[in-house]
């Protein structure tokens, strides 16, 4: 295993130390592994808490800051954080207006956040509302299964909902907005290589030199199917087509088109893919209102990419454009 780490057991703690050093504007609670805004909770503002397994950096810790999250819990690599962390985060961001938990739809994340919310309620703590993100069209949605995974829409949702919370909107409204964003976002991903979980020490799956996986998740879960390598143009089709056939994206104010790198894919290639995605959207009559291209939600050292489309109206775009000051996303301030 080739990684710039020390003991695999220490990778999350070590990375959080590095992150704290790189971003003195944040406050890192190393014991609970929670990244907080440096300035603490603002009275009357809804607190936004997210988190999940580590290995997806900059998500979520890198999205803590003005206009986005108030706190992020870092679990072990690819393992949901534990309820204690979420309780500490919730208490630490409570400004009296309640706290929104933004949870990616994975059994572990959902159950741990659920237990955390129960614990907070048992202590008569902050009012907590939970929103679950489930946007991955690679997964068949059904009442009888765990449902769709939460992937790229999470990043867009945290930004947009973060802007709404910053405006001082009440918890119910912020939560409604979050659900609206989740409803309007769809994603699909692919991998050229597997990732290697540090504690496992070897690639999660073997992928021959001439093959790629379509429909992968962001935890090294293998995809829905394995196909021969193809040019970016065809890869774009394999990602965009299932998204477009899952939701109507035409009309409105266009989409936010998010082409995301999975950790080992250079920006050069993401731009190539973005050009192909844009060409397909153009052909389908879907306008791109905003683009986001880069490694914002990674899967350790996986080479590959995900595409997320979020159908926007004026309000979503205005909130997207609002100032954000985090290590991972920053503009307008």
């Amino acid at each position, binding site marked *: 295993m080739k990684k710039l780490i020390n003991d695999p057991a220490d990778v999350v703690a070590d990375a959080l130390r590095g992150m704290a050093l790189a971003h003195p504007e944040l406050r890192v609670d190393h014991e609970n592994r929670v990244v907080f805004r440096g300035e603490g909770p603002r009275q009357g503002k809804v607190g936004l808490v997210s988190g999940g397994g580590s290995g997806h950096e900059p998500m979520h810790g890198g999205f803590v800051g003005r206009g986005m999250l108030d706190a992020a819990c870092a679990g072990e690599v690819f393992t949901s954080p534990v309820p204690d962390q979420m309780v500490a985060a919730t208490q630490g961001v409570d400004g009296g207006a309640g706290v929104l938990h933004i949870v990616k739809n994975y059994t572990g994340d959902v159950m741990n956040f659920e237990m955390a919310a129960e614990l907070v309620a048992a202590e008569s703590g902050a009012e907590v509302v939970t929103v679950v993100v489930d946007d991955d069209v690679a997964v068949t949605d059904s009442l009888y299964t765990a449902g769709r995974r939460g992937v790229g829409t999470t990043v867009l949702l945290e930004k947009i909902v973060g802007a709404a919370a910053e405006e001082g909107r009440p918890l119910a409204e912020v939560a409604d907005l979050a659900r609206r964003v989740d409803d309007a976002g769809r994603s699909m991903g692919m991998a050229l290589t597997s990732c290697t979980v540090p504690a*496992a020490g070897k690639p999660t799956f073997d992928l021959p030199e001439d093959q790629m996986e379509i429909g992968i998740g962001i935890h090294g879960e293998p995809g829905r199917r394995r196909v021969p390598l193809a040019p970016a143009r065809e890869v774009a089709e394999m990602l965009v087509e299932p998204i477009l056939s899952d939701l109507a994206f035409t009309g409105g104010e266009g989409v936010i088109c998010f082409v995301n790198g999975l950790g080992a894919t250079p920006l050069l290639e993401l731009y190539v893919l973005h050009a192909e995605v844009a060409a397909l959207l153009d052909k389908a009559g879907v306008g791109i209102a905003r683009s986001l291209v880069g490694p914002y939600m990674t899967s350790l050292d996986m080479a590959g990419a995900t595409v997320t489309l979020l159908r926007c109206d004026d309000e979503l775009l205005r909130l997207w454009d609002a100032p954000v000051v985090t290590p991972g996303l920053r503009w307008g301030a």
Partner: protein
Amino acid sequence: MSTEELQAWLRRFAELVHEHKDELTALDSAIGDADHGANLDRGMTAVLAALEEAPPADAAALLKKTGATLVSKVGGASGPLYGTLFLRMAGADTFPAALRAGYEGVLARGKAEPGDKTMVDALGPACDALDAGRSVAEAAQAAAEGRDATVPLVARKGRASYLGERSAGHADPGATSTALLLQAAAETLS
């Protein structure tokens, strides 16, 4: 269920998890995210340390401590599920009753049904065996059979469900660790 017996059980389970850590992770690599072995190993190591540090007064306290430690240290799906299992066991007087209560906790927390290709498929048959008056060894046997029966299943819960048809052909990691839990019980509980 004496405190000593339960402690022996947990110690043996921790040992088995540690021995099978790589195997559990390999199973989770095939249909999940390659961390089930690391997760449970981290959890049971923490449990043993916690029990060592402040030996609980009775069986209920011991089970509660175990459950709470797992919830606090494991994360992922197995943290809440194994944690709930032990937390709910704390209320009962006999092992069969305790395991049944734990099983119901797992069902309530995870909302899986038998046949969804989860730990439920090993735990359920073990509870049924005990409730039918069979020995712990027979319950362990039932859990192992339940684990094996997950191999052909298409997963409907947990990460493996994302694979759809591709999840068939592999044993479920959680069912496999649950079989170890029952094996440890067979070796340590009377």
